[in-house]
């Protein structure tokens, strides 16, 4: 029985790393050629990796959720000669293709992967690799075997050494210190301290999973030393560009880290992802020690102002709000409602066996009320479309369906996903749809399609304890209802002041479409349902 390792391939063009999203197999499973082993996510896409081997999964070498470099062994598969041989002629192709072991497939000793950076110098590399041999990997490798997990040899810096003339440089060259050519800006004391910690932290945790190929050990090996040491030293004064792979650069940019500040441990003085992670940890530790939000006046003024680039959801929200506020003339109206019966109704629903396990809130009754009221006042469920006929004429498009939008605060910012064809849903179905929508929004999983095609929106500002407000209409719609908090207040009933559950409904309407009386009637209808949900049976 022999054990083969599958090295993470470059599934795109020039990708350097990928995250193992999920394993589809576990140790002990039998796999055939092209059976799906795992799902990985690269900078470009999510793809499934098919097995290059047939046999039994021996070990998963990388945990789910870890990002590893291309060329890192991710799984080992043991072939079972007897079984493979026996099954070969019968089942479909995959199995037939199985016997790579007997064909040209090279002996299975750990071929050094064909990458610029050798993975994990320590763990199971052949002993010959210990020192300078690393730079001339072919010597250590098997004879002309197949490329193992190749892909484009992205960084093929391995060269055979020149004979006599260049020998001095090639063999004896030792880089002055690992970090000298890298950290161009002279490191200040704290940074130096960080460097020490970097080295310490990187060494420990990943050992089990052989995470990054570039560990301190690899860096220390004078891999490729001949060129880099000499040239690197010579040009370091001129070029201050720090070596790092594109995903690492992006990571650094996202974290707002200047790569030049990071102590590099990678081959050729390259900043690795791990370097960044530990630098960030260090930085966060420092930030934690920082006193408060307020910056003392002795600091320069521009350092006391935080600049946040406007992009993504923030930018989209800003644009939508400006578009809406400055094209649709908003009219807002409010009404106080005694929602006590709604509260009772919700309480009864919660207790009912039919709604067992389903989250029920007053929002459900409001949603139902809005759908009911819109059918009685259809113009609120409409769009104003400029230049609908192509000749500059506008059009009001009344929607005979309800895609009910619910404004939601999500990890990515404000989103307004909508419940499609809400008019067809029973109370229970609507409750489920609301829950589903909220769950997805909270998890940040709302898809663009879920936010398109809304016809009317509810914003549940009461969830934050607010009484009411003047909401801005979701672009493309003409009405929005703000649902205030429900709390007990003094209320006059039959000449007596008694505590009741009171809420305030706010609504904004596009006056181009919805006039005062219509908006009033619509809001009154919604209010009527909250006051007496039994009217829904009507």
């Amino acid at each position: 029985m022999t054990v083969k390792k599958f090295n993470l391939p470059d599934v795109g063009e020039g990708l350097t790393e990928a995250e193992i999203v999920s394993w589809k197999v576990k140790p002990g499973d039998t796999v055939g050629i092209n059976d799906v082993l795992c799902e990985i996510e690269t900078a470009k896409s999510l793809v499934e990796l098919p097995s290059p081997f047939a046999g039994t999964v021996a070990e998963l070498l990388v945990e789910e959720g870890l990002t590893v470099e291309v060329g890192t062994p991710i799984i080992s598969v043991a072939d079972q000669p007897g079984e493979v041989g026996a099954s070969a002629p019968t089942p479909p192709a995959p199995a037939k293709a199985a016997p790579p072991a007997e064909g040209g497939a090279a002996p299975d000793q750990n071929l050094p992967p064909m990458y610029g950076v050798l993975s994990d110098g320590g763990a199971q590399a052949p002993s010959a690799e210990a020192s300078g041999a690393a730079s001339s990997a072919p010597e250590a490798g098997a004879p002309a075997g197949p490329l193992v997990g190749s892909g484009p040899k992205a960084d093929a810096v391995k060269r055979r050494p020149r004979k006599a003339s260049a020998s001095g440089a090639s063999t004896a060259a030792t880089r002055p210190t690992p970090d000298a050519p890298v950290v161009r800006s002279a490191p200040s004391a704290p940074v130096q301290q960080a460097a020490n910690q970097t080295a310490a932290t990187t060494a420990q945790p990943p050992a089990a999973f052989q995470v990054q190929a570039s560990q301190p050990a690899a860096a220390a090996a004078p891999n490729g030393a001949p060129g880099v040491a000499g040239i690197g030293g010579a040009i370091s004064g001129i070029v201050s560009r720090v070596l790092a792979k594109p995903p690492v650069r992006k990571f650094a940019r996202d974290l707002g880290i200047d790569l030049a500040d990071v102590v590099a441990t990678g081959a050729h003085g390259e900043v690795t992802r791990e370097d960044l992670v530990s630098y960030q940890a260090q930085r966060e530790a420092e930030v934690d020690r920082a006193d408060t939000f307020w910056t003392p006046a002795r600091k320069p003024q521009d350092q006391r102002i935080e600049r946040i680039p406007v992009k993504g959801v923030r930018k989209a929200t800003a644009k939508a709000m400006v578009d809406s506020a400055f094209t649709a003339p908003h009219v807002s109206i409010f009404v106080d409602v005694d929602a006590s019966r709604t509260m009772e109704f919700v309480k009864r629903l919660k207790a009912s066996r039919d709604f067992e396990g389903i989250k029920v809130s007053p929002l459900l009754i409001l949603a139902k009320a809005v759908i009911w009221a819109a059918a009685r006042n259809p113009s609120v469920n409409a769009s104003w479309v400029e230049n609908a006929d192509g000749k500059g004429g506008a059009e009001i498009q009344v929607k005979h369906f309800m895609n009910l939008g619910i404004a939601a605060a999500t990890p990515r910012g404000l989103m307004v996903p909508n419940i499609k064809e809400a008019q067809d849903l029973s109370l229970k179905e609507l409750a489920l749809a609301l829950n589903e929508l909220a769950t997805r929004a909270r998890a940040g999983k709302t898809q663009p399609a879920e936010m398109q095609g809304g016809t009317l929106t509810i914003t549940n500002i009461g969830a934050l304890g607010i009484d009411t407000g003047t909401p801005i209409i979701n672009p493309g719609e003409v009405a929005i209802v703000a649902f205030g908090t429900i709390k007990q207040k003094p209320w006059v009933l039959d000449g007596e002041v008694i505590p009741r559950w009171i809420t305030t409904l706010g609504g904004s309407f596009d006056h181009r479409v919805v006039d005062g009386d219509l908006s009033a009637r619509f809001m009154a209808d919604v209010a009527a349902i909250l006051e007496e949900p039994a009217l829904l049976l009507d």
Partner: protein
Amino acid sequence: MGSTQLPAPGLEGMQADRQIVGDEPSTEMVQLLGPDGKLGADPVFSDYAKRLEPEQLRGFYADMAKIRRFDQEATALQRQGELALWVPLTGQEAAQIGSGRATQPQDYIFPTYREHGVALTRNVDLAELLRQFRGITNGGWDPNENNFHLYTLVLAAQTLHAVGYAMGIQRDQKAAQDQGGSKDAGKAAVVAYFGDGASSEGDVHESMVFASSYKAPVVFFCQNNHYAISVPSSVQTRVPLANRAKGYGFPGIRVDGNDVIAVHAVTEWALEHAREGNGPVLIEAYTYRVGAHTTADDPTKYRLKEEETSWRDKDPLERLETYLRAEGLADDDFFAKVKADGDELASYIRRTTLELKAPEIRASFENVYAEAHPLVAEELAWFEEYSAGFEGDEEEEAN
């Protein structure tokens, strides 16, 4: 400059166009075998379809199934790190097999980088095809052996090569006839494959202008697979691509690219048209790239699942299978054998690919000039001296 052959005046091309496509700016599409697997009729092309023997129809199916299986295996090999890149063709089998099977051995093909199906019809060893994608050579096969040119990675460049080649055929033909050859001596045509994305390139315009002016025997075969990587074809053109031929003065035909029978008929017609000296034809095979542009692409980022599903319903293999079964032309045994053959091919491809060796670098010097050349000899000598200056074995480095 010697005697330049000026094109004859006249608008024969336009007439043919009117005859085939009609007067209106046409969105008509030639279709014989619909998605339901029923054979329809066409005033011009049904005659071509009738000529097909059952054996040929079964062959079409077997080819399409084989190339799809090959496509799957190559994709898997890429995902296993054995190929640097792969360009999937799934969805376009009918367009490629139908057109490829309509060519004759003397015709010459200029493919893009996705014409694996056409390569199959021209008897290119599919394992050889993978050499380029494994990154060990710039070519992979000898184009003169099968009159199947090397894959061209520069978008649309091959359309110019094709027209130039076709103009060469015209001259060879004239020379043969001048020397007393028969009227049919040297009759051949060229097929230039390209896609909807490439149709936006200037090269295509230039090649069509020249082809039309010189009535070159070239068939422009555009597989409109709906996407230039991520850009939908609706962004590339406001009229059916086939209509563009009108502007150049030769016939343009849109054919259902998922209907292998119609593609075969239309291509046969176009090749005859070209070989007979009537000038170029543009064929727009209306099809869909079901998979990604390449293995480095993720189509879910720019198109919806519903769209992909709707095209899966128009699958070229399924409709032919339905037809073959309904007409009693093929049975379960046939389809089982096709599947087994595909699996065998896949296993052959896997084995061979893993064994592919990088070619000897000295081979590169051999193909610079047809005959020995002093400069090449000098450069080779320099190379030998240079490589002798290294330690170790050269073979190891090559791998």
